[in-house]
């Protein structure tokens, strides 16, 4: 099935600097609000599968998985610091009206 934008929650439910887990069509994603822009990515840390929405600390666009200290750039999913070596998969987002939509 081709990727399409799926309506999820109200964008305003995630405060600036906040992180939330959302299930989208059976996939558990984490969404970060960085200065009013929303970034979505797989919720499971690529190191040992901790929930990034639950265990993550967000500072700007840098997300630290506090389980073991891996750092990711939420804008791209790229690894900024080990022990993770594999990027988290990132998803495109957009806001339609007040709805946060994520492309899955």
């Amino acid at each position, binding site marked *: 099935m081709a990727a399409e934008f799926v309506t999820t929650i109200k964008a305003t439910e995630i405060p600036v600097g906040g992180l939330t887990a959302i299930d989208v069509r059976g996939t558990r994603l984490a969404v970060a609000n960085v200065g009013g822009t929303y970034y979505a990515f797989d919720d499971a840390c690529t190191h*040992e599968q*901790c929930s990034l929405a639950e*265990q993550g*600390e967000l500072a700007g666009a840098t997300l630290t998985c*506090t389980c*073991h*200290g891996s750092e990711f750039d939420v804008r791209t999913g790229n690894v900024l610091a080990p*022990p993770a070596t594999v990027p988290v998969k990132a998803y495109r987002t957009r806001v339609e009206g007040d709805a946060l939509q994520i492309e899955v």
Partner: protein
Amino acid sequence: MAQRHVILGASLAGATAAITLREEGADGDVILIGAEPQPPYERPPLSKAYLRGEVPFDKALVRPAAFYAEHEIQTMFGTRATRIDPSARVVELEDHRRVSFDVLLIATGGRNRTVSIPGVDLDGIYSLRTVQDADRIRAEMIAGRRAVVVGMGFIGSEVAASLRQKGLDVVVIDPSKTPLFRVLGEDVGRTIARLHRDHGVRMIFEDTVAAFEGTRRVGCVVTKAGLRVECDFAVVGIGIEPAVEALADSGIHIDNGVVVDEYCQTNVSGIYAAGDVANHFHPVFDRRIRVEHWQNAIKQGAAAARNMLGRRIAYDEIHWFWSDQYDANLQYAGFHTPWEQLVVRGRLDSGSYLACYVNAGRIDAAVGLNRAKEVRRIMPLIKARRPVNLEQLRDESVDLRSLHEIS
């Protein structure tokens, strides 16, 4: 002029230093020399996921094997340095090769402490440091077999957990009152004892091994108190000692490892040390510390590389480590010696707490059980070295990020 950089020790600290040298634009040779035959790898999985057979060895590699050649890092694996001659600027290897250097990093790590106990040379007695060690223990890990773990430091505790997770019967023997007693103290140690007891580990404390018995293979561990524990194999985890043999007569200052300043530099110009082997001056704690953990290997390896390039950046990282046991995530940050007060957020008798080691109102260190975020949030308070409001520290409704310092 291009410098010739030689790194002794191809483990996490040494490999990170080599990678950092290239990332930071070192011109000239970068030569990485290591005693182990395989490319540099990380050790944390060896007592946990790798030991349990949940991840392949490749996952533990610091970089893929091809990375080093691709980045013009020369490697000499499977050979140990036997001597360093600082005046001739030469390292001698056990295969008799001689490697000259302009700048040298000592990242030789440590080796497992051994004990002279009767029967210690019997088959079926293991220690854990290398991937080969882990493979030997893995081969013994069949559900229902009986293992004795000697020593309940971090390695012993993690191995005991992994053995239980694979369905083995586990008995541990430790001279202290609790697991992790030396680092974390009795109150916190008791919580770790409970964790292991809840997972079916039988623990013998305040006792030590008097003898391993068996004909060819160990079949029984006898303690000083006279207990006899039958087993199919044993794992001894009683700590490491820094690997400094090659430095004898080098003039490099040795005292509980290689003594370095906050710039990772030894008393000999152009010779640096990092990782488990480095007894480094820590400017935050105003004393020397030698740390045997993953994060220090990475961060100090990188810091040493920058200083090798003349950047002169003090290494002042707040030390931090994790220890996953069963489904519990234990983390520690900071550094403490005996403490005046243990200030606890949450309850030690629950499955989640943050315990802070406090001296003169300052947080020297903290340990968290299933409190990963709070451990991270308390690190700036540890680094600040100023007294904090202990009532607020104790109050779980107070976000640690907003904790007021006492002015």
